[in-house]
C-alpha cells in the first residue's frame, strides 16, 4: 500500500507557481527523501501533505484516502522553522501536542515520559523550554513529532543546527522508526544525508520534479560509465597506458578514473590490470546525489 500519493498536484502563491504538476508516491515503511535546494517547493509540498494549505489542481491521498482530520492525527510533523512555547514545561508541551492529535491525556503522559527516558531527558521534564540548551530543545521538538506514535512522520531538515552527537541520536531514532514499520518522509537539502538514509527520493527544482526513484537506480542511471582504480604504488598509474580499450583517464595521486571504450569487457580489463600492478580498489564510479543534482540543475538552466 502507498502511504502517500500525489497525482498531478500544482499550487501557486500570488500567481507564482510554487509546485507544478507533481506526482509521486511513498511506500509504507520506507524512508523517503524529499530533496532540492532552498526554495524548490519542499516546504509547500509538506504543507500540502498536512492539509495546512490546499492544492489548486491535483489529488493527494494519504493512507489510501483523501486527507481527513483523522488521517492528520496519524501523521507526525517536525517543521523546518522550529519553536516551542518558551515558558511551558516540556512534559506539558508534549502532552498538549499529543492531545491535539486525539490521544487521551493519561496515555499522552505515559508516551511522553517514555520518550523522554529514551533520550535521557526525563530528569528535565519539569523544566521550561527556555531553560534547556539548544540541542535539547531540538530533541524535544523531534519528540513532539512522534509523541502520538504516528504511522507517518514528516521531518523537515531534522539535522539542521544539530551537533554531531545529537545528529547521531536523531539519525538512530529515524532508523528505529523505519524498523518498527513507520513511514518517514525526510525533507532536506543535504544530499549526503539523503544518500545514506533514504530508500527512495523525489528531487525538486523550482517546483518541478527532476529526479524520482530509489537512490541506487538514480545513481546508476546517472553514472558516467567509468571505473575507479586505486594502486598500491604511484607507478601503477603507468600500467594503464599499456592497456587497450580505454578512452580517457583522469589521474589522481595513486588512483585514476578510467573511461572504457564502448564494448570493452570490464572483466578482462581488470585481469590485465591485476597482472601488471598491485590493485587496492577497483569499483564502478557512481556519482553522488549531490553531483547528480548539480548536473541536473545546470542542464535545466542551460535549456
Amino acid at each position: 500500500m502507498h502511504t502517500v500519493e500525489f497525482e498531478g498536484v500544482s499550487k501557486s502563491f500570488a500567481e507564482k507557481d510554487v509546485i507544478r504538476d507533481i506526482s509521486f508516491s511513498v511506500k509504507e515503511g520506507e524512508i523517503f527523501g524529499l530533496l532540492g535546494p532552498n526554495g524548490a517547493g519542499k516546504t509547500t509540498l509538506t504543507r500540502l501533505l498536512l492539509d495546512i494549505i490546499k492544492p489548486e489542481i491535483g489529488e493527494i491521498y494519504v493512507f489510501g484516502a483523501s486527507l481527513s482530520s483523522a488521517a492528520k492525527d496519524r501523521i507526525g510533523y517536525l517543521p523546518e522553522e522550529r519553536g516551542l512555547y518558551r515558558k511551558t514545561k516540556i512534559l506539558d508541551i508534549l502532552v498538549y501536542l499529543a492531545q491535539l492529535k486525539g490521544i487521551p491525556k493519561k496515555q499522552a503522559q505515559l508516551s511522553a515520559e517514555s520518550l523522554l527516558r529514551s533520550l535521557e531527558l526525563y530528569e528535565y521534564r519539569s523544566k521550561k523550554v527556555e531553560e534547556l540548551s539548544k540541542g535539547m530543545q531540538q530533541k524535544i521538538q523531534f519528540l513532539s513529532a512522534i509523541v502520538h506514535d504516528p504511522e507517518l512522520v514528516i521531518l523537515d531538515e531534522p539535522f539542521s543546527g544539530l551537533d554531531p552527537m545529537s545528529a547521531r541520536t536523531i539519525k538512530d531514532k529515524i532508523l528505529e522508526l523505519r524498523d518498527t514499520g513507520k513511514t518517514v518522509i525526510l525533507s532536506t537539502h543535504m544530499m549526503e544525508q539523503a544518500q545514506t538514509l533514504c530508500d527512495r527520493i523525489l528531487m525538486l527544482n523550482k517546483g518541478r520534479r527532476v529526479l524520482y526513484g530509489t537512490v541506487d537506480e538514480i545513481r546508476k542511471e546517472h553514472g558516467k560509465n567509468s571505473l575507479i582504480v586505486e594502486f598500491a604504488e604511484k607507478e601503477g598509474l603507468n600500467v594503464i597506458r599499456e592497456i587497450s580499450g580505454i578512452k580517457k583517464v583522469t589521474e589522481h595521486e595513486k588512483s585514476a578514473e578510467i573511461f572504457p571504450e564502448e564494448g570493452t569487457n570490464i572483466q578482462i580489463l581488470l585481469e590485465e590490470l591485476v597482472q601488471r600492478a598491485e590493485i587496492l580498489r577497483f569499483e564502478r564510479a557512481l556519482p553522488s546525489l549531490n553531483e547528480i543534482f548539480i548536473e541536473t540543475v545546470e542542464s535545466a538552466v542551460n535549456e
Partner: protein
Amino acid sequence: MSKFSGKIFTVAKHEFLKTISRKEFLFMTFIFPIFLAGIIFIPALLVSTASVEDQKIGYTDMTNSFDFPESSSNEGLSVGPVGAKTSTIYFVKYENISEAGNALQAGQISSYLVIPENFLQIGIIELYASGKGVPIPGDELMGELSDIVITSLLKDRVDEPVLNRVKDPVRVKMYNIGEGEKPAEQGLAEVLTNFGLPFLTAFILFFSIFSASGYLLRGIAEEKENRIIEVLLSSTTPSELLTGKIMGLGAAGLMQVAIWLLAISLGSGYALPVKIEPALLFLSLGYFLLGFLFFASMMAGIGAVTVSLQESQQIGGVFTFVAAFPLIFMQLILTKPESPFAVFLSLFPLTSPVAMLARIGASEVPFYQIAASIFILIVSIYGVIVLSSRLFRAYLLMYGKRPGVKVILMNIRAGNM
C-alpha cells in the same frame, strides 16, 4: 463528543489554563479592584479621619470689633463604615501679639491669628504657627472665620434671615420627574447609581474585553513568532484553533468580569448606598461576551497578518484607542445619554458594548436601541470572523514580511485561501 469539538475543547482548556496562570491576569483580577477601591475610598477616609482632632487657636483682635465664640464644633463627612466624627476648635483671646507668641511657644495653642487694624480695607487675617512649613488653615477654620467676620459686620444692620443667606447663600436640591410619577428627590445614593455605577461598569467592561482580546493577540503573535503555529496547524484546522482560543480566553475574561462584578456588589453594599440591578448585571455579561467576540476575532486577524508581537500590538492599539472613545467621552454620555453622539457610540460596534452599558446605567434607553446595538454587533461579529479566518488561513504561516494592504484585500476578496 465529536473529534472536531474535542480538539476545540483541548485548545480552549489549554488557553484558559495558560491565561489564568499568567501573572498579569491574576494581578488584574485581584489586585486591580483593590487598587481601584483604594483610589475611590482612601481620600474620602482621609478627609473624614483628618478632622477628628480638636485644636486650640489663639487670636489677637487689633480692631476690637469681632466676636469670637469660645468654641465651634464641626461635623465631619460620613463615608461608608466610618461614622461622622465631630471636631472642635477652641478660640483663646490674647491682648497682644507677644502674649499669643509666648502661648504658642509654651504649646498651649497650636497656632494664633492676628486681625490687623486695617482689616476692613485689606481683608487679610494673619495665621502664625510654630515649626517649619506653611501653616494652612483647614476648611473648618476658614468657614468659621468667614462666619465670624460676616456676623460681626452685619449683625446690627440686617435681620436674621438675611444674615443667614449671606453666610450660606444657596443650595441645590435635585429632582427627577419620571413618567406619571411624583418627582423623586435625588440624593447622594441616586447620583452614585446614575453616574458612578455606569461609569464603573463601562470601565470594567472596557478593561476585561481588552485584556482578554489582548491576550489572544499576544498568544497568536507569539505562536507565530516562535513558529509553533505550524505544529498546531498540522493537528488542527485554523478554525478549530481560532474557535478554541476564543472560547478559552472568553471563559477566562468572563471569570474576571464575574469576579469584579461580585466585588462591586459586595463592596457597594458595604461602602456605598448603591444597589446593582440584576438586569444590568445580565446585560453586562452579555455585552462582555459580544464585545469580546468582536474584538477577539479582530485581534486574531491582526495577529495573523502581522509578523511580530510588537507590530501586532501597535496595530491592535489603534483599534483599542477608538474603542476607548466611550471612556474619553464618558461625561457626555452620562449627562446627555440621548445626544446623537452618545447614541452613535452606543450603536457603532467598536464602541457599543461600553457606551451602551453606560447609557443604560444613566438613563432609560429605548428598547429598540438596545436591540439595534446588539443586532449590529452580532452582524459585525459574523463579518469579522469570516474576514479574520480568511486572513488566519492565508497569513498564519507567512513569516518575515508583512503583506501589503493591497494583497491583503485581494486575499479577502478571493476568499479561497
